[in-house]
Structures are given as structure tokens and as C-alpha cells.
């Protein structure tokens, strides 16, 4: 039993961590949290199931198309819901605009795809073992994203430009960095990461439109606890969340597990609003 708790806990935790990273990538580029993070995860599952199971595409093609769909939604988010309200950040209009966009996509999915959860295809033709693909796929995706981001940020010019924007937008703009282009690229990247999370976790979460608000919430927990913009914090907090949730699931049952996660989240946030790893920011008067 311990083994299955750990396996499913780590797997689910990896999905949460990836959604957390999706939030972070968007936040770094624009200082904005977007409600579309969970929607992207939901789309990963739905698009994967649509392309591979329903339309019968090869796995690789379906995978790439799903990621492309995520990138597209990322770019749309930037253009429609983020850019127009960046000028008045203090009014927090981005909360409403990204919420609206997330709902639009979610409702569209509910109507066109249906409101019941559908199975996600098995990607590799391997028999079920104790260490099944539905567990190791999310883990693999998480490792790939972490290593990929690390390489991108540390060893490429574009990656350093991303960091520069995240650190100080005005200075970066003054240095002549194409801020708007970089922001759109960040959102496309976030779209890819979010759909990857949903795709890799497809067998665990199924192709279900209701995953969107669920992932929006559980994916934000690692961000809030790990400190905003802090990817390592998100991974650690995501794994802890996954393990905690699965353990609670087994020990006290589903509803109380959700209640426990929610309670822990609220208590930790109230005690340390800046997250377990974050630092408090001064407010300007």
C-alpha cells in the first residue's frame, strides 16, 4: 500500500508541479497569474484523447498537435487577456480577464467534447506492471521540463532574456529587449508545459473538462507554498502536495483528503502569505 501511495502521490504531485511551473512561467514574463493554467492541463488530456483515441492519429503526431494547441492558447491568453490589462496592473483586471478566457475555453470544451470524463489512450503498448506508464509518464515529463528550463535559462540567449524580463521589465526594455515578443514566447512556452502536464497525466486524470478548475486550484497550491516565480519551490511543494493528498486519500477517504489539503493550504498561506520559501515584498506608499 505504501508503494502505491508513493507512486500515485509522486505522479500526481508531478502534474501539480508542472501546472505550478506553468503559472510561474507566465508570472515571470508579465507579473500576472493566469486562470488558464489549469485549463491548459485539462486541454492536454482532452486534445490527446481527441487526436489519438478518437481521430486515430499516431501517438507522436497527436502529442505534438496537443502541445501546439497549448502553445496557441498560451499566445491567445497573452494577446486577449493579459496585454490589454497590463497597463493597469494595480486594478487586478487580469484576474477577471484570464478567468473569463479560462471559462470560455472550459465551456467550449464542455459543449463540444461533453461533460463526462472519457478515457485517455495508453501511449505505449506495454503491459501493466507495478511501475506503470501512467505513473512514470508524469514523472518523466516533470524531469524533462525542469532540465529543459534549466538549460534554457542558463545556456541560451533567449533564456537569459526571459530571466532579464522576469527580473526587471523596465531595465530589460531599456536594454532593447523585445519585451512583447519575449512575453508571447513565454506564454507559448507555458502553454506547452501546461498541456504536457495534462497529456502525461492523461491516464490518471482522464479527458475531462472539469479538470480545469481542479488543476487551477491544485496547481496553484505549489506556487503559493513554494513562493511565486520559484520553480524549485513549486516542484518540492507539488510533490509534497501529491503525496499528502494520496496518503490522506488512502487513510481517511476522498472528501476528507480534499478538505485536509484545503485546510493545510489556507493555514500555511495565512501563516506565511509569501510562501514557505518566498520573501516578503515591501509595498510602496
Amino acid at each position: 500500500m505504501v508503494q502505491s501511495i508513493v507512486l500515485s502521490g509522486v505522479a500526481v504531485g508531478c502534474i501539480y508541479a508542472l501546472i505550478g511551473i506553468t503559472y510561474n512561467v507566465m508570472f515571470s514574463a508579465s507579473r500576472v497569474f493566469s486562470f488558464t493554467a489549469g485549463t491548459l492541463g485539462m486541454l492536454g488530456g482532452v486534445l490527446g484523447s481527441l487526436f489519438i483515441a478518437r481521430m486515430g492519429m499516431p501517438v507522436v503526431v497527436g502529442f505534438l498537435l496537443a502541445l501546439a494547441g497549448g502553445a496557441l492558447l498560451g499566445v491567445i491568453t497573452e494577446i486577449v487577456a493579459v496585454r490589454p490589462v497590463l497597463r493597469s496592473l494595480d486594478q487586478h483586471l487580469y484576474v477577471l480577464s484570464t478567468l473569463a478566457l479560462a471559462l470560455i475555453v472550459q465551456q467550449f470544451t464542455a459543449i463540444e467534447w461533453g461533460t463526462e470524463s472519457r478515457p485517455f489512450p495508453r501511449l505505449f503498448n506495454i503491459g501493466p506492471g507495478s511501475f506503470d506508464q501512467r505513473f512514470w509518464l508524469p514523472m518523466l515529463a516533470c524531469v524533462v521540463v525542469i532540465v529543459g528550463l534549466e538549460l534554457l535559462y542558463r545556456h541560451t540567449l533567449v533564456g537569459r532574456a526571459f530571466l532579464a524580463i522576469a527580473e526587471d521589465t523596465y531595465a530589460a526594455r531599456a536594454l532593447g529587449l523585445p519585451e512583447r515578443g519575449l512575453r508571447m514566447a513565454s506564454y507559448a512556452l507555458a502553454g506547452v508545459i501546461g498541456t504536457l502536464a495534462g497529456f502525461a497525466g492523461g491516464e490518471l486524470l482522464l479527458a475531462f473538462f472539469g479538470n480545469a478548475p481542479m488543476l487551477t486550484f491544485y496547481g496553484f497550491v505549489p506556487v503559493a507554498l513554494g513562493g511565486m516565480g520559484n520553480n524549485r519551490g513549486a516542484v518540492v511543494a507539488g510533490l509534497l502536495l501529491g503525496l499528502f493528498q494520496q496518503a490522506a486519500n488512502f487513510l481517511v477517504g476522498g472528501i476528507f483528503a480534499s478538505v485536509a489539503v484545503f485546510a493545510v493550504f489556507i493555514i500555511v498561506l495565512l501563516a506565511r502569505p509569501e510562501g514557505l520559501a518566498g520573501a516578503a515584498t515591501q509595498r510602496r506608499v
Partner: protein
Amino acid sequence: MDIPAAQLRPSRAQTLGSGNVVSAALPFLLLLLIGVAFPLFGGYWGVIATRACVYWVLVSGLNLVVGFAGQIAIGWVALLTLGAYTTSVLAAGNVTPPFPPYFALAAAAVVGAIFGLIVGLPALRLRTFYFAITTLGFATIVTQVALAWQSVTGGGVGVPGPVFSEPFSSLWGFYYFCFGLAAICTWMTANIAASRFGRALTAIRDAEVAAEASGISKPALLASVFLFSGAVAAVAGGLFASLQSYITPDAFTLDLSVLFFIAILIGGRGSILGPLLGTILLTVLPEFAAPLVAWSTFLYAVLLLVIVLAMPGGIAEILDFKNRRPLASNRAIIPRPDLLPQLLGAPNGAAGALTLEQVALSFGGVHAIDGLDLEIQPGQVHGLIGPNGSGKTTTLNVISGYYAQQSGAVRLNGTALPVFARERRARMRIARTFQTPRIVGSASVLENVMIGGTIDGEATFVESLLSLPRHRRDEAMLHDTAMLALATVGLAQLAPVRADRLQHSELRFTEIARALMLRPAFLLLDEPAAGLSADEITRLGALVMAIARAGTGVLLVEHHADLIFDICHHVTVLNLSKKLAAGTPAEIRSHREVVNAYLGG
């Protein structure tokens, strides 16, 4: 151009933000009339009209949270669910002996109030998006609990809703029951909107630092609002369960939350009528286009996006005809310092000095102020000048509690001021203005100034809710004092105008009027002359001197050297975070180092 004394105290009806009480109440009376006569339209609309009333009971409370306090609570359906299940389960007698439905409804209100507080309180600590997410999480969890707690909620099978006894059991009887509650909710929230609590909520939303400086306690205020909002949401839940006659967790999707939330935003923030019309619109709309029902949430979401991007003011702004009339272009600010004694009362000789002793504060390795001594005497104007970055505003922020000094002390009359407690400064009669005016743009100038007097009101939240005599006395007092303060700074004729239509210089004087509402013992002015014309600076100088003559100690942070030397009794010059010189204006003017460092030869 003196204002006749009689004009200083116009009746409330003339100067209320919404123009005229009668014309403001007219749409509500019209809706009341339509609502009462509604059964004449025939049976088909009965259920829909009842549903609109039920929704409005919830939305009216949520409106205070979202529209007035600006807290983005997107998961409020959770409280509807909670109220629906509490009422139904108690009335059905699943866990207790069956309650009469009315008692069950009252019990639901209590439960709703408690949970409204629990869901809402994180708003005190968490930023916008965090709070939105926690309400979303709560909504998800309540539905899951309803689904899984089968012994009580019936799980996926559900429970029957309560049935209210005669005369409220028939279709139209129940309609009148819901309509009556909706009307009461409208009345109560309109009372709050027009009270010091309503203004304080908008101040928290749009100008939080100004709210703190006016002594508004955010925790107490938001707690009251969340209690009320949770209670009415749960009552709406009980009515909803009765209307549905049978409830399952499926009935409480996030779509409903979205509907409530969007009704408020379509209506416009800070309005009662707008969200009321928004609720009616969103409830009725799908009935006209049956094929669209499946798409309704999708369309609401599109509508939300359009509203946010294209017209953040909502219906309320469209209906605000009064504020589209052009203002006179050649208006001038003519302060009336002679009114100050009337406004501030007799000088309070007992007030001691406000002193800073060896105050030091550094950010990281940078010394913002480094061992500063300063003494502000009652009845005197103390100038604080120095180059940019020399620590002037930091000093002011230490005094008013935005920063905590790392060493040294700030004392009022010998007692050390508590560190950080910003909203307690107001009770000590220390008032301030800001370098960039902090104003509630969507409220009238008068309402903005009334915010300054919030702590002088005596009525409790409940008294204001029910418009009891003490509430009406508070409002009359605040209104008259604010009109007097506006006349004193020379803005009486702009009282009913939306504040975001004012010029920059007028906003500066509005802030001074708001600060004067505290009858301050000490007034801290942060660059009040910035952006003013030469004439206006002269009048400002006369006004500040008169404020000091009335007994108030003034700390004036300024760059205009002429103004400083004209009106200050004492001047302190800062340079590189340290005191460079202190003395009378004449001494400072001839101080060699000051001339070199700051004034220029």
C-alpha cells in the same frame, strides 16, 4: 467671490453623490411596483421571477464583497450550496428532529454567516489572485463533501428541498416570500452603500493607504461584510432548495458562481442598481433564447471578457447621466480659511509635540534616514526640505506607520507611537496627504471627503444596515462636516462630482479636506504644492498657515523653497539621509551648506 453662508449647508438631497434622493430611488420604486404586480403577467414567468429574486438575495450580499470591497470572490456558490443543504437537511430531519422550514432557514443563515467569515477572512492576508483561488477551492470542496457525505446529504441522490407553509406554499405565495426578502436585501445593502461602511469599503478597494490613514480598520469591516454576505447567501440557498424542490450536488456548479459574479461586474462596481439589473438580465436572458441555454455560461464568460476590456464601469456607468454633464472649465479653488475654527473646533492646548529622536532606517545597505531628530510643535508649520532621495517621504512614512524605524523613537506628547499600526494614527489625530493623491475615483468628491471622518461615526454595522437613528445622525453629521471641509479648501461647488473628473490640483485640495475631517492635532503634507499653479500655491500657503493658527502642528514636505520660506516657522534640511541644518527660514536661507547642496547660489 464669497460663498454665502447659507449655501454651506445645503440640504442633503442637493449634495448626495447620486444627485437627488428621489431620482436615485425612482428605479428601485419602479422595480418594486413591477415586482408586486408581477403575478398579473401570468404563470409561466412565476418560476423565473422567483429565481431572479433568489439570486438577487445572494448577489446583493456578494455585491458588498465584490463590487464595494473589491474582493474577487468567485466561488460564492459554495455558500448557496451550504445554505441549501443546511435548510433541506434540517427541514427533512436527516440528523435532528425536523425543524420547521423557517427555523431551518434561520439556522442556515447562521451557518452561512460563520462560513462566509471563514471563506472571507483569508482576504485580509492574501493578495487578489490568492483569495480568488481560495474561494474557488472552497467551492470545489463543498460540492465534493455534499457528494460524499451520503448519510446527511443523500450523496448523488440528493435531498428534498424544504416546503414553506401557507401562505407561502403556492407558486405566487412563494414568489412573494422571495420577493419580500429580495426587497429587504436591496434596502439593507443600499443603506450600507450610503453609510460610512460603504464608503470605507470602496476606499479599501481603490485607495487602501488612504483608508488606513483615515483610521479604517480593514479586518473589522471586512468581517462584518463577510458575515452579512454569507448569511444572505445561505438564505438564498434555502430558498433555492425550496424552488428546485429537490437538490443534488449537480445543481451547484461553478456556472452559478460565474453568473453571480458576472451579474455584479456587468452592473458595475460600487452600485446597487447596476448589479440588480445585471441579475435580472442574466436570469431572464436564457428564457428568450432557448437554444442558447447550453451556451449560457459560455456567453456569460464572453460577456465578462468584453466588460473587463471595454467598459469596466458596467451598466451603472451607462446610467450615470449626471456625470456626463461638462464641468465649468474656468473654475478656481478659493479656500475659505476663516471657516477653519468652525471645522477644527477650539485649539486643544493640551496636545504636546510630535518628536523624532535619533530615528534611523535603512533598506538593505542603503540608509534612508540616519539618526534624525525632529520636533513638530502644535500650531506651527515645520518645513522638511532636501534633494530627491534625502529621506523626506521616508520620514513621513515612519511617522504615519508605513515603515518601522530600526532604531530611535517617534513620540507624541512623550508616548512612543506604536510601530506599523497605521490605522491607529487617525485616532491619535495624526492625518496625512500623499505625494500622488489617493482618491476613490468612482465616488463623489463629497464621499471622498466623508471617508476622512469614518472614525467619528458611532453607529454599528447592524445599525447602518437597518438605517436606525444613530446611523442617520452619523450620516447627517459627516455630510455637514464634509461640506464644511470642502468649503474650507474651496471645493464646495464640486461636492457632487465624480472624483476622477477633477483636475490634479483639485485632488490635492480634496486630500487636504479629507485630512481635515480628522480635526488633526498634526497634519503631514507630502508635497502638496506639486503640480499647482502659482496662484494655487499662494492660496495653499495661506490655508496651511491658517490650519497651523487653528492649533494644528503641520509637517510640510516640499520642493517649492519659496512656499517653505514664506509659511514655515521652522525648517529642517535633509541631505544624504542626514540632517544638514535646522532653524528658522532666515537662518536656513543663509546657511552656506544648504545653499550649496540644495538651494543653489
